[in-house]
């Protein structure tokens, strides 16, 4: 599983690219045709570089001073080679057309314009094969790569097959800024400290911070919250789980028995599905205790006055500028 990768066009070369070569120019006929970026262990005399169209996309994106990234259509494209499925959709038994199996969230324009089991016949004028590929500059590549050719907010021309007829439409494409699986790549991570308990947003970056063996350190429920729940619907997709990242030990929390990497679901009875929820719940907390509930069903508490006193000491002790950064 590649939870933190997006698929973009790359070019394979027989020049070995080794550690330290990354970022170096690839020259052909005196012109830069790419930027080298990766080799692959076990793959001899082969390396990969970023082609010019990806570099141009990046540079164009930056012209307004805001980097958006590469947009997506928010659809799952699968091959359509089964004769029965083609017949059920009223399609000829040939090599044209790939099926849109599912619509992802949150892509409101996609949900407005497309349906599950629409058949993608053309993307940006390129005929789509039944295997989901297009012939792009002489190479067979997946049709989804064409979506990354346009900029955030721009549209792409699609020809689809629906209800036994062809239909042409312009689909606006967006960079899904809500996609936590892409990670929070360009901003420092948010955090809120409550009595020494450090909470942050569950993201690919967070999992990456756990090291190479992160999969062994988080449960299936955590991975589900990060990756799979997004596919259930708009509301679920927009939820940003809050995870207990670490505990800054203090006499007031030394016996707190819920482990780090647990997902917080409630504070003082208030549901928590984002850092903003947690910030508000902390701000409006009343009573003698912070009462926490976690996704596992575990509950815990901190004495509120002790927690507030501990925060001041811990900020000083660990050189932390403030109790939260959102």
């Amino acid at each position: 599983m590649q939870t933190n990768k997006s698929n973009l066009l790359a070019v394979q070369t027989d020049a070995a690219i080794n550690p330290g070569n990354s970022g170096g120019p690839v020259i052909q006929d005196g012109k830069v045709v790419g930027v080298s970026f990766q080799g692959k262990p076990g793959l001899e005399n082969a390396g990969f570089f970023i082609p010019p169209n990806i570099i141009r996309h990046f540079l164009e994106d930056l012209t307004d001073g805001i980097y958006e990234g590469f947009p997506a259509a928010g659809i799952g494209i699968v091959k359509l080679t089964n004769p029965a499925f083609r017949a059920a959709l009223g399609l000829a038994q040939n090599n044209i057309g790939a099926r849109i199996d599912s619509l992802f969230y949150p892509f409101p324009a996609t949900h407005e314009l497309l349906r599950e089991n629409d058949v993608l016949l053309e993307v940006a004028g390129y005929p789509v094969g039944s295997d989901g590929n297009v012939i792009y500059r002489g190479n067979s590549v997946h049709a989804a790569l064409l979506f990354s050719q346009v900029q955030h907010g721009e549209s792409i021309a699609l020809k689809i097959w629906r209800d036994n007829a062809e239909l042409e439409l312009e689909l606006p494409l967006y960079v899904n800024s809500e996609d936590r699986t892409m990670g929070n790549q360009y901003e420092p991570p948010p955090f809120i400290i409550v009595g020494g308990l450090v909470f942050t947003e569950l993201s690919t970056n967070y999992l990456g911070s756990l090291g190479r063996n992160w999969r062994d350190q988080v449960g299936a429920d955590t991975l589900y919250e990060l990756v799979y729940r997004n596919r259930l619907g708009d509301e679920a997709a927009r939820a940003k789980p809050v995870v207990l990242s670490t505990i800054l030990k203090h006499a007031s929390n030394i016996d707190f028995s819920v482990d780090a990497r647990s997902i917080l679901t409630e504070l003082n009875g208030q549901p928590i599905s984002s850092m903003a929820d947690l910030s508000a719940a902390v701000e409006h907390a009343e009573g003698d205790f912070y009462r926490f509930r976690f996704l596992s069903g575990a509950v815990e508490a901190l004495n509120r006055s002790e927690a507030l006193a501990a925060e001041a000491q811990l900020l000083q002790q660990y050189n932390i500028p403030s109790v939260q950064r959102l």
Partner: protein
Amino acid sequence: MKPLTALILGCLAALPLRAETAYNPETSLVEIEVTKKAYDYRTPWIIRNEQVRKNGILIEDQQILTTADGFSGQYLCRIKQRGESRQYTAELVWIDYYANIAILNVADSEFWEEMVPVALATSIPQSGELQIYRWRNGRIEQRAAEIIRLHSGSSKMSYVQHLVLTVSSTIQSAGWAEVVFDGDQLVGLTASASKDRLNILPAEFIQKVIDGYRSEGDPGLGYFDFTFMSARNPALPASKGLDQRDVGVVVTETGTRGLTQHGLQVGDIILEVDGFAIDSEGQYLDPDYGRLAMGSLATRAHFAGESIPFTVWRDGAVHRLDYTLPRADFGQDFIPEQRYDQPPQYRIAGGLVFQPLNGPLLEALGKNKPPLLDYYSQQKTLDERTGLVVLSGVLPDDYNLGYEDLRYLLVDEINGHKISHLEDIEAALSAPQGAYHRIRFMPEGGLRHIVLDAAAMPAATRRILQHYRIPQQSQL
């Protein structure tokens, strides 16, 4: 200490103090060979056979005691005695996979000649040295074992909690019911081994299980069907109005295994179980064995069906309730953890192989099991479903062209029918939508929809079964 005194004491320590009561294993220890059917859940129609060699010991009433481990799927059991090559056919009289205990009998009267049963120890030592015995190549192998601790642990074969004696020993490849003695007292049978550590089923637990088996109705072992967490953080009980430190544990889930249970609620702080005070780590002070985790109280003095008094803190007050101990039963799990003595279930339709999601299937997938299956395997309930079915793979054929790479997808619906069990598939396929079967998978997976030709499915299934030499379309 003077050198002479030290020398005398040293010599005394080296003497075999229990020599007069040392156990003679030749007349009671036997070697068991179990021949069994074995399955690979990735190809559930294939039956292999396996042999397991383990140990057993004669106890009263011409019964041979051993562990249940290795018996699942058994169809032939043979026993050797005295290291001789002759094998006697044995009958599996009774087995309890939850307790990991089995009783065998041998019909041939010759077998019992000069064989001497041994007695189970009535108490378990908590320190000192024990002796482990087993047959190896016609000779008795004897190894010393040092007691590490007696504690409450999970059965090797189930989630049941009971007393476990952990020892260290240099014996190799153990854990197959090697017998453990303290002098001439049978202290227990080895149940599992890891490096130089062995977990032993203590005699006291074995005796209790056998008593249950011999009693009318065999009530079986009970299980505390709830989860709890420590309340050692004083702020946690204080936030619930309980102004005491280091007492009780907080209930975090009830009905974890889908067993019937009464009385407890999430958020209760358990203060006492069966008259024993529970500390904030979930331990109680056992009158015989010191501090033990409370889980073993379910099996220490009770059988399933009995009521155990609980004292809990709930809504700012002490409550007393009777917890009716449910019987351990894998069949009640939403995703069954184990399936003993049953072949894997499957159903093949048009080359698509469907299987119920359960523990053995997940185990067969190993460490690389798909995260979504891992997640669903931990669910206790799901909407109105009573189980989950997986498309575990596709046997390629022209009929299912384009779907040959599909595997480990959770089935949501077939032809609009929700699918919980393999039996649901039969009903769903009998009602195609027009000329097609439409299968939907769970929305979080990699693929949502597939369509198959309804009329062509029966012939395709027959052709595929023949092509792949699969004897039957389904095993339910």
